[in-house]
């Protein structure tokens, strides 16, 4: 029994995207990894071909597809072992703030560009001195006449170099209650007073550009506020379910890639009668890892359906987020162990890239420790039965 029943249209879309990746994307991966940037043209190509923001409504230039199209894009990128093509941040994390909270005018202004890849988005939440702790945010947004003046700095901004539009969280310095102080804003990247910092070197995901952002009396019109004033905290919270879910979908697909590759390697080794495939310990390790993967996949697929049905599964997606990302880390590392020294050589073995890429999954979208804290709190404060 498949948990998700994909239609023929879904399969066709998946096939089409897979081909696109093979012809238009993967041949350039090394080059973009070295450049630490994916050219804006490529984003446009992705957009023009319908691989960005597939769920955006037709009224705003989108295809108005169901969420399974999003899942397909995320899965195929991960299965192509190219997490550095961080399109899902744009399509499934940032743009949803706009579709959910923006005014009609804001939607008309930005969404069509987001869909075709003319506008690349980023979200600016984290600050140098406040990682997962939103309440200690210090970037300020002060209303002055028809404008809002922003001051402060944000860090770990994914798509930081490429981004044209930023969903920014900042606080009203007058409001003492941290939960009421934060508002969201839409800031265009060329706004005077906004400066992009230098790019971070990272362990992996090299094609993906990460920077700091500095706001120095950065002035945007009041119409740039996203959602109600002071509602930022709540708006951010509302979107966490999808953010964690797509992270889990990506992690599972990445584990799938690692295992598929390794199992195929062992199948070949078996055919070649190489000593590697004769190892009973390695065979057991593969059995264990494939089992781990199948369980996660079953769980996450169930959550995809619940999410599409509009259910509140924030607790379960938090579980999926920490568990699948830990697992992807473990699986990429353990697969390499089975290949012995061969596993560690970049040119021979794509697992090296996977190992370097997945290490960030347990850190971003809320660290895995934060996930556990949330789960435990919910678990102990509730009186619901587990079964």
């Amino acid at each position: 029994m498949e948990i998700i029943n994909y239609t023929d249209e879904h399969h066709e879309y998946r096939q089409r995207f897979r081909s696109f990746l093979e012809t238009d994307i993967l041949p350039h991966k090394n080059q973009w990894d070295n450049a630490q940037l994916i050219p804006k043209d490529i984003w446009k190509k992705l957009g023009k071909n319908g691989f960005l923001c597939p769920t955006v409504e037709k009224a705003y230039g989108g295809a108005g597809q169901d969420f399974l199209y999003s899942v397909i894009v995320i899965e195929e990128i991960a299965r192509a072992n190219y997490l550095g093509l961080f399109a899902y941040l744009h399509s499934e994390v940032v743009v949803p703030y706009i579709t959910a909270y923006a005014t009609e005018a804001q939607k008309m202004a930005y969404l069509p560009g987001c869909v075709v890849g003319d506008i690349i988005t980023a979200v600016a939440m984290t600050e140098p001195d406040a990682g997962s702790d939103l309440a200690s945010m210090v970037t300020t947004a002060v209303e002055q006449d028809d404008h809002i003046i922003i001051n402060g700095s944000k860090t770990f901004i994914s798509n930081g170099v490429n981004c044209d539009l930023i969903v920014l969280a900042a606080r009203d310095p007058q409001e003492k209650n941290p939960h009421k102080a934060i508002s969201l804003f839409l800031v265009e990247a060329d706004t005077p007073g906004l400066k992009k910092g230098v790019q971070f070197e990272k362990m992996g995901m090299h094609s993906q550009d990460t920077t700091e952002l500095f706001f120095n009396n950065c002035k945007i019109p009041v119409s740039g506020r996203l959602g109600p004033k002071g509602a930022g905290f709540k708006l951010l919270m509302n979107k966490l379910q999808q953010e964690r879910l797509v992270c889990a979908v990506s992690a599972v697909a990445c584990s799938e890639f690692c295992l598929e590759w390794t199992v195929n390697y062992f199948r070949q080794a078996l055919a070649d009668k190489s000593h590697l495939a004769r190892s009973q310990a390695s065979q057991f390790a593969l059995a264990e890892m494939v089992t781990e993967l199948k369980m996660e996949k079953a769980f996450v697929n169930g959550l995809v359906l619940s999410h599409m049905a509009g259910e509140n599964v924030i607790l379960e997606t938090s579980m999926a987020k920490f568990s699948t990302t830990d697992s992807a880390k473990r699986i990429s590392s353990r697969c390499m162990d089975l290949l012995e020294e061969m596993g560690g050589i970049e040119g021979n073995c794509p697992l090296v890239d996977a190992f370097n890429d997945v290490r960030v999954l347990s850190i971003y979208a809320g660290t895995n420790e934060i996930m556990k804290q949330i789960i435990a709190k919910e678990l102990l404060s509730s009186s619901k039965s587990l079964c």
Partner: protein
Amino acid sequence: MFELTKSQKGIQKAALEFVKGELDKDISFKMEKEGKFPEKILRQAAELGFLGVHFDETYLGGGMGQVENCLVSETFCRKDATMGKALTLWGYASECLLRFGNDKLKEHYLPRLLDGEIFSGGCFSEPGIGLNFLSQNTIAIQQEGRWIINGIKNNVMNGTNAGFYIVLCRDRSQKASTDAFHMILVDAESKGISVTDSGRKIGNNMISTAQVAFNDVSVPENHLLGKPGKGIAQLRRFFIESHIASAAQAVGIAQGAFDRALEHVKQREQFGKKLAQFQVTRNKLADMATQIEMSRLMTYTAASKFDNGGKKLEHIAAMAKKNACETAMAVSDEAIQLFGGYGYMGESEVERFYRDAKATALFETPESYQNEIIASETIGKIRTK
């Protein structure tokens, strides 16, 4: 009870001062990225006597033991794993020459090696065969007072820049058995050698790893190390030293990652408290510290037994390496996590410790080899019908 002697503590201190003074983080990051060997620092280390502390003084070694060698490796790797490993592994497998070679060969190669002038590589593994010695296909034929060698070896440390290789070869005249292999030193200048660099690796990127092919390579008869046919036994003896050395590097890596993480959690605040005040952080640090302490103890114990001529060391050394590598992986992984986003950035150092830990586990000898060494010693003879 294990307790360092005064002179051992002195060595440790000197090594610490050296790395503090000479190893620069930014230069190191650049070199790691470009895959360059730190030749200048190697020379400095040689001058100060940090290379080959366990080699005889006759050959410019330090005249000390594996404990001292471990202290240096650990200290180097604790400060900077990639550079530490480079400064430790530049002479990989040269212990084979030291322990089994004749005086003439030693006099010819060792002083230059310990001076940091030349490098050495070990040719022990073969593509698709690994360290399954009996299946190996590199052949040596004795012919007119020389050895003619043919075959392909992979995973050769310092493969592209070694001055000499130590090569495990099967005697063609004999069937594959543990007594049919020779250990032969091959000068890298010999004709018929072709080397293919394996390129960038998960870690350990200041040292080259390569595939080395021997095509009718001819070397003088006296380049046989030790007795003919004793290649496998000698190699296993060398792996004792090599396991201990790898273990020491891994302990250094673990400690280095731990140092950075500890400093971070004592400074970084979240939710109004220092990270170090959260119970979960404290438990993580307790686990990490325990693992490191145990691995270090096991490593020093193995080294000390080695220096005292202890028998039955093979499995103890393998245990030390296996365990220290696990520790290095677990500790550096947790260190990244404690740093959060900063841990994933290059400048945090911990991500590089993590990659170098993985490289330490994967290269040299894999865990499967260690497991079999430990198992066969532990299980002993099995009576079958």
